[in-house]
């Protein structure tokens, strides 16, 4: 305490040992926050070019793109529209949140993670029925219905391989169908070929009620 106020600039240790000689100017005090992008003192090492670097770059971008397309990329469910629209019924919705697009080996996973999707079967087949008359190849649609049914049941690893093959085929058809729909742009074709099955009581479960 006795030393307080005396000899303002003195430090407790011999500054020469640390290397600041007498009379050397100390850096001025800083009055502002450090700049956002301080100037670089040394140039960065040039990036590795050459065949290896370019190949790895291409690989990296390919991987990114590929992973987006895989079923492991979990997309959040489609945002709920404010009003329920008529066209919703005819659009191929993205896989519902609770469906898994690929078939893991359920024996290797804890039981609580299994997801059952039975209840959706009714809703999924209805929009596909009018589609049957549009696509020229009925057999393809039948195959697709089959694959969807299989898909929504509990999965076993036995069907894993075929599932992947069918899914590949299904993806092809899905894309084709999407193109058609976008190209047509009118409602006419869809409703013109409506074979009336969705009109009136649902054939499956409401057959008892009277038809007016």
């Amino acid at each position, binding site marked *: 305490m006795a030393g307080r106020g005396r000899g303002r600039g003195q430090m407790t240790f011999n500054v020469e040992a640390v290397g600041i000689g007498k009379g050397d100017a100390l850096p001025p005090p800083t009055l502002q926050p450090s700049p956002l992008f301080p100037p670089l003192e*040394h140039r960065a090492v040039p990036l590795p070019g050459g065949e290896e670097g370019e190949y*790895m770059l291409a690989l990296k971008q390919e991987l990114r793109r590929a992973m987006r397309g895989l079923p492991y990329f979990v997309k959040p469910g489609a945002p709920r529209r404010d009003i329920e629209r008529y066209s919703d019924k005819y659009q191929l919705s993205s896989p519902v949140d609770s469906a898994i697009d690929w078939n893991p080996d359920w024996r290797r996973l804890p039981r609580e993670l299994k997801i059952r999707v039975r209840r959706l079967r009714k809703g999924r087949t209805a929009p596909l029925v009018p589609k049957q008359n549009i696509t020229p190849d009925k057999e393809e649609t039948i195959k697709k219905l089959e694959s969807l049914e299989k898909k929504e049941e509990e999965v076993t690893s036995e069907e894993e391989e075929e599932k992947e093959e069918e899914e590949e085929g299904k993806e092809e058809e899905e894309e084709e169908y999407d193109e058609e729909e976008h190209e047509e742009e009118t409602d006419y074709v869809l409703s013109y070929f409506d074979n009336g099955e969705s009109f009136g009581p649902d054939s499956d479960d409401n057959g008892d009620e009277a038809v007016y």
Partner: protein
Amino acid sequence: MTQAELRLCSLLLQEHFGEIVEKVGNSLLRTGPRPLRLLVGDTGLLPDQVKKALCVLIQHNLVRYEVQPRGSVEYEARSERILRILRYPRYIYTAKTLYGDPGELLVEELLLHGHLSMSCAVSRVADRLTETMEDGKTMDYAEVSGTFVRLADTHFIQRCPMVPETPQGAAAPPAPTLAIAERDMYIVPRFSLVGKGKRRRSCDEEEEGEHKAKRQKPEGGSSEPPLDDGIYWQVNLERFHQHFRDQALVSAVGSRMDQTSSEVVRTMLRMSEVTTASGASHTQPLSSNEIFRSLPAGYNIGKQVLDQYLALLADDPLEFVGKSGDSGGGTYTVSILWEWDSMFGSRCARIFRLLLRKKHLEQKQVEDFAMIPAKEAKDMLYRMLSENLVSLQEIPKTPDHAPSRTFYLYTVNVAAAARMLLHKCYKSAANLMERRQHETRENKRLLEKSQRVEAILASMQATGAEAAQLREVEEMITGPERQQLETLKRNVNKIDTSENQVDETIFVLESFVESTMKRL
């Protein structure tokens, strides 16, 4: 887990698996192992979404689960495995250099899907290879499975732990406890995969016929499970790391001495590839006779010359090769010095090397030994001190620690310095990724437009449009927009390459930190 690691992990998860998986992964990383209910409550997502995300993460070995004694299942995220996603391109490229295209595609499929059964992997790879071949040729399964077996023999891929056999009638546990013995890990099941790769979307008539025939087959064929049911394979990342380490060692030796000595070291490493456990710091001792016999054919050097080389390597102060024939971790010091070079300039690297060698030095001694003018030396030392790369050690001359009578010595604590650098690397990788995403987001509209134009062009070309129409469509993208796209592409490429580069540094530093921790 440091903040920087956390940030990098969530960026990686988000980029490769989407936002839902990222949220789940984040929650697990931040708060440690927890059961499903708590996860659902924490993330605020729907239970089904969380379940789906967990399935994805477990499939890719990023999360593991454990049955607690009370019966609930707890999930734990594996942060170090998530960070490896950054290194996927390097693994695939290495597989390509070692085993050609089938090897590359096999490793890629395994990395993309987490784990696959052999039949599945082989069929996928054969299909992909068939697509790239000329019309009419198909890839035979035999070649691909041959590569698969070779990959398993050299331990680059390994079997996943298996589901145990449950005795009949016993209650199934809530979650299987998967286990596998070390020796079983690389055994390829004996069965023959017969078949050829199939082409997708080909316009041939016979494909249509096959398509229809294939459709009838599933009804009959789905009843039998594939021959290797339940046996899944995954990539053995540790083995790849060992390979990278060996590569680094060899190149370091090559740059210090000459080509032949690096060949010697490479031979030694190759011989002990499979016998060394992945985390060992020394290989098994090898006699010089064995080395002599295993040298590649092109190098016909005499036995005495080989002995001379070995002696040289053993005497090298960086201790690559010890007298009894094992090789050690001298590379890491060399590699870290390379990093110093780029960060602070070569003068700093000189000071650093000096401090490493002499352990403790005073200020004046540093200036003398390094032959750097006093002012510069001071400046650099303080900068390194502020970055915590070097530290001050006080040695008092008198018992009362009076500052004027104390030695202040500079010293380097290598492990701490390495860890600090590693932290910086994680931060820079995360920054790079964010910047890249930002750039892509800013130009999203333009990117989408160009994609649409390309799609239109492709479809028009397929249906045979004239050149004039094509040109018209191309002009939908104006000149300045084209330039903007070019700049964007160049920037994104640069950022991607730097991410790869940073990952290489991360690898070196991580191995170093790991090896120092083991030695303690």
